[in-house]
Structures are given as C-alpha cells and as structure tokens.
C-alpha cells in the first residue's frame, strides 16, 4: 500500500472546535470571528442551514457542521468563524476558537460522499486531530446541497 508521507502546512490555518470535533480553515479565508446574533430562519433552507444574519450590510448564512457531518448537537453556539471565498461567504458556528497555527499530518480527503469530500486530514494541531475544510469546494457543495 502506498504510504502518504505527512505533509507540513505551509500556510497557517484557523483552528476551531465545533462540539467535540476540531476543524481548520485556511487562515486567508477566515475573515473574522463574530458573536452570533439571533438568526432569521429561511423558508425552504436545508436543515444544516441554521439561519442568516445581517453583518455590515451583507446577509450571511450560518452552516451547522455538526448536522452536515451527521452528528447534530443541540448546543446554542454564540460565536462563528466567517469564511469568505470568491464563491461566497458562510459563518461556521464554533464552541471555541483556538487560533491560527500550522498543521502537520495528512491532507487527504476524509471521504468520498457528502461533506466528507470537502474535509481533509487527519491533520494534527496542539489540541488534537483536526479536519481541514477545503473552503472553495465546501461552499460550492453547500450551494448545490439540498
């Protein structure tokens, strides 16, 4: 079997916890960390889309990673990481934001279906194993997910 050598992270990643899982996004796509206001629900939106809020004249959708990965939590998130790419922007609720760090480990796809196609890893940070979100394809995926 082909062994994939560990890969060192050249660019920094913003690491955050969502429930018991750790996620990371490329630091250059994480525009800010915001306090979440009460959300406006959107009719016909998929279940992983918790709602939207207005932020500096822009409507931002809040995407629940725990529902997307099939491990929904009832946790009321107070903060979110804003991820911005040319394909759009989303807010990802976070239980904790651990900061920007470099990652080591595997950067391979974590699955072939659903959201797991857009998660890479397992990478390692000081706090534990991290799934890296491929932000470009992740937002494209969200745009087509029902």
């Amino acid at each position, binding site marked *: 079997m082909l062994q994939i050598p560990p890969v060192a992270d050249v660019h920094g990643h913003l690491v955050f916890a969502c429930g018991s899982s750790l996620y990371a996004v490329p630091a250059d796509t994480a525009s800010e960390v915001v306090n979440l206001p009460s959300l*406006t*629900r*959107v*009719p*016909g*939106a*998929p279940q992983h*889309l918790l709602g*939207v*809020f*207005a932020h500096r*004249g*822009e*409507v*931002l*959708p809040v*995407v629940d990673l725990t529902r997307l990965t099939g491990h929904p939590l009832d946790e009321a998130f107070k903060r979110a990481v804003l991820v911005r790419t040319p*394909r*759009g*922007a*989303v807010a990802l609720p976070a239980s904790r934001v651990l900061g920007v760090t470099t990652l080591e480990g595997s950067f391979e796809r974590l699955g072939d279906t659903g959201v797991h196609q857009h998660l890479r890893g397992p990478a390692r940070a000081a706090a534990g194993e991290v799934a890296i979100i491929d932000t470009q394809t992740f*937002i494209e995926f*969200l*745009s*087509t997910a*029902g």
Partner: protein
Amino acid sequence: MTSAEVIDQIEGLVLCRVGEDRLAVRAREISSFDVPQPGAPYAGEGFSPGARAPADAKLLRHHDTSLVVDTVEVHAERLRLLAVPAVLARAWGGALAGFVETGGLLWPVLSLERFHLARSPEVSS
C-alpha cells in the same frame, strides 16, 4: 441616483408573520388577499414541515399562485434589498428574491412568481 442604487432598493412590501418566523412579499405581486382555501400552500411548511396554518390565516393571491401566512402588514417605506447568499440561491426552488432589514429584523423576501414556477415543474421546464 445611479441605476445600481435603484436595483438595490425595494419599495412596497407586505410583511408576513408565519408562526415564529417571517417573510416579506412585494406588494405589487399580490393581486388580492383572501380567506385560505383547502390545498393552498402554507408558508409555515417552508420553515417547519408539517406546520399548520392558524384559523385566522390570510391567503395572498398572485394570478394562479397563492400562499397562506398568519398575519400581514403593509410596509411602504423604501428599503435596501440585500442579496441572497450563494448557498441559498436554490432555497425554496429559487424563490428567494433577497432580504430586507426593518424594525431591527431581517426579512426574507419571497417572489411569488418564482414560487409559482418552483411549484409547477411543467411551467418552469
């Protein structure tokens, strides 16, 4: 005022409450208000599948399309129309026209025309 600013603005809305949720519809898209009829779609189902309209609900009619909501309030003030985020472009069959902020709240703006097309595949195909 530039044309871009005109496109950005929306005037004449009907603000609708639907359970604990809300939506807005362009007033010019509504041809009449009526009493709900059996089979008319309830907007609450878009928020919570299986939701039932209250007894005193209102029906918004636009030609062949109708939609039932709990309460209606006409809002005449001009408002800025905020864009639909890319990840929501397909929500409710692409019937979202944007969002407005008024009274400290954000309201999804529904296009009844697009809603009609989304519910009538034979029309949109």
